[in-house]
């Protein structure tokens, strides 16, 4: 049995690595993606342009504009001369927000009357607009504090304050979140697509039926088919583990052994899903589309695109069946949180269950198709 299995594995490795273009596709894009998407995938809002419609011109309005343009997140202040221009600047996406100061602004402040700033935002980008509005609030609050230092009015007034500490990622660097997440997503896309399409290709060409009538057992054939994506995936992820701490400076704090155990279960779960897709598909085209149909929800329900806690309850239940959701917790945990081995394993057993279910279903389907 071992001799047959070995021959099968060698054959599979040759089949996948023989084509030079396929070789490039397996190894180069995952690295390129890591670099491009790692830097691009940020929900931070920086370098934005803000319009200022200043009808006041007094000292306090100039001070505010000064402080706005001094903010490290603001790239440029766009002066705006009329109400029509406000509309045009927002519509044409020239600025994300316009700050409007009325004629009484400085006078109100000097007279100790409340001064009001109108700010309009581009709601087409409501998420970024909200973040910009928080920046503006902070700048205005600072200016307010400079105008009138905290009054000691109520002597018996209770005073409290909060001190913020960020664990695992002291500067809340977004890259620290993106990188461990990309490990999960990129290895998933290649693992799933490679499995689904290599099997479907053999079926389209008819060589899969030849394998099925060879002395190999169905389980041996399937194990042979599992080895190449498993090796390719492990190789790519190992490369990430080397690159991410050295090139991107993201700490790798947890147990590598536990990580690899979880990775093996994750890859097996993905391969199981890929096998299931290819068992149901008749052509490569169908296999590709099937894989695609799965990749999109798997990414969206993983917690990488947006937190799982934000989803409606029934989708959170569905997300439990998503291997990427569990492995994302492990990956973020092992990189940033020095996650204890026990916790890693607690997130690994669902992966093992998914792998077991999908692989069994795939082998049953293959077997029933032969008979």
């Amino acid at each position, binding site marked *: 049995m071992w001799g047959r299995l070995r021959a099968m594995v060698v054959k599979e490795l040759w089949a996948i690595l023989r084509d030079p273009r396929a070789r490039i596709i397996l190894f180069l894009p995952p690295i390129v993606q890591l670099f491009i998407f790692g830097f691009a995938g940020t929900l931070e809002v920086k370098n934005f342009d803000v319009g200022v419609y200043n009808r006041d011109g007094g000292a306090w309005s100039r001070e505010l504009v000064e402080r706005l343009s001094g903010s490290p997140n603001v790239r440029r202040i766009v002066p705006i001369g009329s109400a029509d221009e406000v509309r045009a600047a927002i519509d044409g996406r020239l600025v994300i927000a316009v700050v409007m100061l009325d004629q009484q602004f400085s006078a109100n402040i000097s007279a100790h009357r409340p001064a009001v700033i109108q*700010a309009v935002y581009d*709601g087409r980008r*409501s*998420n*970024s607009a909200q973040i910009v509005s928080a920046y503006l609030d902070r700048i205005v609050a600072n200016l*307010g504090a400079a105008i009138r230092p905290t009054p000691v009015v109520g002597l018996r007034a209770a005073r409290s304050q*909060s001190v913020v500490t960020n664990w695992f990622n002291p500067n809340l660097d977004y890259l620290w979140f993106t990188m461990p997440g990309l490990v999960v997503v990129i290895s998933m896309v290649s693992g799933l697509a490679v499995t689904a399409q290599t099997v479907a290709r053999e079926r389209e060409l008819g060589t899969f039926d030849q394998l099925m009538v060879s002395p190999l057992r169905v389980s041996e054939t399937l194990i042979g088919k599992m080895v190449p994506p498993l090796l390719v995936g492990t190789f790519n992820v190992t490369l990430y583990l080397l690159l991410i701490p050295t090139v991107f400076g993201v700490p790798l704090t947890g147990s590598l052994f536990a990580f690899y155990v979880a990775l093996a279960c994750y890859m097996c779960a993905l391969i199981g899903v890929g096998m299931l897709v290819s068992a149901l598909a008749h052509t490569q085209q169908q296999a590709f589309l099937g894989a695609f149909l799965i990749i999109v929800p798997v990414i969206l329900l993983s917690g990488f695109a947006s937190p799982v806690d934000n989803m409606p309850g029934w989708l959170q239940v569905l997300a439990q069946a998503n291997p990427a959701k569990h492995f994302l917790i492990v990956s973020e945990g092992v990189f940033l949180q020095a996650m204890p081995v026990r916790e890693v394993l607690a997130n690994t057993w669902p992966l093992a269950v998914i792998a077991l279910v999908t692989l069994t279903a795939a082998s049953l389907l293959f077997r029933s198709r032969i008979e």
Partner: protein
Amino acid sequence: MSAGFNRRRFYAMLVKESLQIMRDPSTFLIAFVLPMIMLFFFGYAVSLDPPRIRIGVALEDPGPAALSLSTAFERSPYFQVNGARSVETLEHEMAAGRIHGIVVIPQDFSRRLHARGDVAGIQIITDGSLPNTASFFAAYAEGVRANWQAGQAIRISRAAAHPIEVAHRFWFNPELASRFFLIPGSIAIVMTMIGTLLTALVIAREWERGTMEAIMATPVGMSELLATKVIPYFLLGLGSMAVCTLLAIFLFGVPFRGSALGILALSSAFLVPALGQGLLISAVTKNQFVASQVAILSAFLPGIILSGFLFEIASMPTAIRALTYIVPARYLIPPLQSVFLVGDLWVMFSKDMAILLGFGALFFVLAIRATRRRIA
């Protein structure tokens, strides 16, 4: 190969190609079922709205003031609170990823709160492995504390506390619903899928099987052939765009303030480069596996990540920002969001459409050249 254009032959080819597509059941899967699934997940699963964060509050001080602050956290709609007497249990929960923030109200809180000249501190510990959630948590937790304190303080007048007030108004989307901009954006992703992925895959299959060469050996001209190949997909793309738009409006309640003509013009302009890219990929790779991977890499993933769909282009590093200029979806997503939320902004649309058509022309010329070289 003959050069002249023959109308009868052209129609015959067009009918043949259309029948071939219509007969394939997977076509409908892609054109109508897949977009619905995509829209469904983008509509329900992805939300960039402020999350309801699971946090822990360590109430180490049994005093009434501390208790009322802790209740303020429990009442906040943004938090789902796990109470605890000590911080150690919560620290463990956070390392395990079950909660994403901790508020510590220390033992001396009540005492220092009322001590003259002293300030009572609470500690806010965020889970930095989720930076976005962490900054939301820090900001909202601070807000809860400040509100609570304002409720406690009696004598500080509002004007004295806040000499300047900001009135924020969010145009086009006052509800601040992220699905209002995500769903129009996902229509662009759906069209990328049909235009580029499907076309690349199907035509690569023809190359793989040799049927492409077989047709090339007939008197059909090159551009005639490519045109008959892409026109059915163009119509399929528009059909699926229409389905998505109707779903967006009637199922997800996204406002539609532009015109049907506007969205039709934008989609048509986008499908030209999308189809051109698909043709080019299939002509260069001629292998279904490689073509599908190249299409995912060069069209689908950039369409999601480098187009401004999920992530602000302005926030990206300069080199990446430069790269976004060659992603066609970048020129579709802003006008598509505008046609839904703002209305027809023809000045903006015409500029983006011109760029899209320019990309389209480039891709088609390259595709024709790549095809020709293969035969020679």
